[in-house]
């Protein structure tokens, strides 16, 4: 009897232990129906800040950039901690997943696919995309047309058209907005320029880098002074790849443009001569050129690179000492850019609309962004006024006293005003050759060619590796 009791007890304990994980979930399901209904109601109500909209705004991003723009420039945003904030009585939740290993997109994909069934407060409201893979999201119904939010063509008339081309789907519907433009220029180390050319004047330096032939000759001169022309061959990749005449994929076949092959040829020569390296972008070794001891002459990049990514906040860096200069470089190009997209099914449409309008169309806020963050914003009249000096800026110290009033200049660029150069770059941007495979192709191509540059493989072997890697990522493609 006692034994039986004991065994019964044991079995019960075991059963409870085995099934323990199975319960306790129904509450999350019940929220869906009511939340969904509320979301629809608000959409019907239109653009007004409706009281019955969701109380949580979920924003999916991969770094701190957009968060700091919202924190600094969106009226009424209060930061609570690193991943939350409030706007009025709405809680803003930042879901920050780094880009590494495609983690951001994987996370976003999974959440978007479940968007329809998610509870209202868990639905994605805003997510950010980059040019390289914008089409992957824009060309689906998971991204909401801007018009459906109540944003009109008149609202966004001052934006640069290219920023809208990138997030327009195959039916011509605009599905995202950006606050920045990303025309790229060549940032050169003023110290290196003085040492090698005897001048650091942007126009004079431009003569030494005006086209690729001159650029490659200049590399030799810099090498004699102990400088690498670029930190890595991958620095110039985008300059070549943005000036292609055909996209990466044509009719389901992988296509390598002639200008890309020219990059391979030029880069191989530079590496073989020891004028530059094969470091991957963002590697610690690649970043050494942000500091004087890194002995790097130039980096190619848009405004955000010099402002946001080149250690300008770190004591002793070239940027911190105002040691960079900007020149147009051999060819115009753009790099990256961040677009704000509204997720279909958002329960905060009017707030999403307002964030988009404030950050991407409000000239005052956008001018502020230029002054405070050295960013190039997506507002044609504002940028042109700042470029030609007709719009002046004021800088104040912490007591509110005006310390500077006059034309725009950049501290990091040693007082230079790079805006005319950027404005000129935006005009040239050619975006008809984008495809939704760009990200995978660009990454795999640089990876594969690294082996060729380092002499570990022949050109054909490296190409073969590229084709192999791309078809692994996108099995529907052939070569």
């Amino acid at each position, binding site marked *: 009897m006692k034994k039986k009791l004991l065994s019964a007890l044991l079995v019960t304990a075991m059963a409870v232990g085995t099934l323990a994980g199975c319960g306790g979930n129904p509450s999350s399901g019940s929220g869906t129906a009511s939340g969904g209904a509320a979301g629809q109601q608000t959409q019907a109500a239109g653009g007004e800040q409706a009281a019955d909209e969701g109380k949580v705004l979920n924003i999916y991003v991969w770094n701190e950039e957009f968060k700091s723009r919202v924190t600094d420039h969106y009226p009424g945003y209060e930061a609570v901690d690193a991943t939350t904030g409030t706007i009025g009585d709405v809680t803003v939740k930042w879901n920050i997943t780094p880009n590494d290993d495609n983690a951001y997109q994987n996370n976003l994909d999974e959440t978007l696919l479940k968007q329809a069934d998610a509870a209202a407060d868990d639905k994605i409201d805003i997510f950010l995309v980059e040019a390289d893979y914008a089409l992957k999201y824009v060309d689906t119904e998971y991204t909401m047309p801007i018009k459906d939010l109540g944003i009109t063509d008149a609202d966004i008339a001052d934006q640069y058209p290219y920023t809208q081309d990138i997030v327009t789907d195959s039916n011509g519907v605009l599905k995202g907005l950006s606050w920045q433009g990303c025309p790229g220029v060549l940032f050169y180390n003023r110290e290196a320029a003085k040492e090698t050319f005897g001048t650091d004047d942007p126009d004079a330096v431009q003569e030494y880098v005006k086209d690729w032939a001159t650029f490659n000759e200049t590399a030799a001169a810099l090498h004699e002074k102990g400088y690498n022309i670029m930190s890595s061959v991958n620095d110039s990749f985008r300059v070549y790849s943005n000036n292609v005449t055909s996209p990466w994929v044509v009719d389901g076949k992988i296509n390598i443009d002639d200008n890309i092959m020219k990059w391979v040829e030029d880069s191989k020569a530079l590496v073989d001569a020891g004028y530059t390296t094969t470091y991957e972008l963002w590697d*610690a070794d690649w970043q050494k050129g942000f500091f004087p001891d890194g002995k790097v002459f130039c980096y190619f990049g848009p405004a955000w690179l010099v402002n946001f990514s080149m250690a300008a906040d770190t004591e002793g860096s070239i940027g911190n000492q105002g040691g960079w200069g900007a020149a147009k470089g051999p060819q115009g190009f753009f790099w990256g850019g961040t677009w704000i997209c509204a997720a279909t099914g958002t329960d905060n449409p009017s707030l999403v609309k307002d964030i988009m309008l404030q950050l991407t169309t409000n000239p005052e806020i956008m001018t502020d962004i230029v002054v405070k963050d050295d960013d190039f914003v997506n507002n044609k009249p504002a940028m042109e006024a700042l470029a030609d000096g007709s719009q002046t800026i004021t800088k104040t110290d912490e007591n509110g006293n005006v310390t500077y009033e006059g034309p725009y200049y950049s501290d990091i660029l040693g007082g230079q005003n790079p805006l005319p150069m950027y404005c000129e770059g935006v005009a040239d941007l050619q975006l008809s050759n984008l495809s939704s495979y760009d990200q995978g192709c660009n990454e795999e191509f640089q990876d594969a060619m690294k082996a060729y540059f380092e002499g570990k493989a022949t050109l054909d072997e490296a190409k073969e*590796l590229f084709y192999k890697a791309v078809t692994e990522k996108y099995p529907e493609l052939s070569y």
Partner: protein
Amino acid sequence: MKAAKRGKVVSYNRWGYIFLIPFVLVYLVFQFIPLVSTVYNSFYENYRSGLTQIGPNFVGLGNYRALLANSDIWIYLRNTLIMWAMGFVPQIIVSLLLGAWFTNPSLRLKGQQFFKTVIYLPNLIMASAFAMLFFTLFSDGGPINSILVQLGILDAPFRFLSNTWGTRSLVAMMNFLMWFGNTTILLMAGMMGIDTSLFEAAEVDGATSTQVFFRITLPLLRPILIYVMITSLIGGLQMFDVPQVLTNGTGEPMRSSMTLIMYLNKHLFNKNYGLGGALSVFLFIITGVLSLIVFRFSSEKK
């Protein structure tokens, strides 16, 4: 009377079955169902292009044909085995040596507990963190290169991670460092299980310690050695985190350090369950065959 007796026997059996339920449930949910679904998936075209799901469409053996159409898979298998062997050979030698020293009563080593703990410690570090550490240490401008250049051993930094054997050696070294402590402890357990009277008899007969090791310890350690060999082989075939993190998933240079599981991971970028499933089944068969060979080879001579 008879019926009651049988009833009692049956009821005890029933308890036995009931107590097996947790294991069977866990096995079914976490092992068997995934195994079957992997095999099932391997016959379908099933991947995602952007946010669009393609398939699942039945393609028969199409995935296997695609996988075996080129020699890639054999190259990755070879890479995996090379890196495993480069780590396993020193690992087993060092472990045997340490095990023999630690268990030898006549040596009376001081601080045994301390050293046993220390050699096991690398295994406690996450493999990815360990790989990250090595990546930083051995990068072109990293501390190892600075030391070597400053000591005058090298003229210019050696690019470990751009060199086939450099990368492979680093992977092997990491696996060695991580696992030799574990193997030592396993082998010590085996050695301590050997009847001490055999050692004493050998000592009385005047055998040298080398003779004792090769004539007594090694033959009697065979079952444990086989176990260590097979578990290490299976672990080695599944090698992933160390080379993945060290080479940033590329298996550089020219995929010479790409292992089978890293290749599998490439197919998971677009949730390609078809090809991934086929590759997993292939790996399952290879592992089974190799384990069988090791087992037969080492238990044959009796």
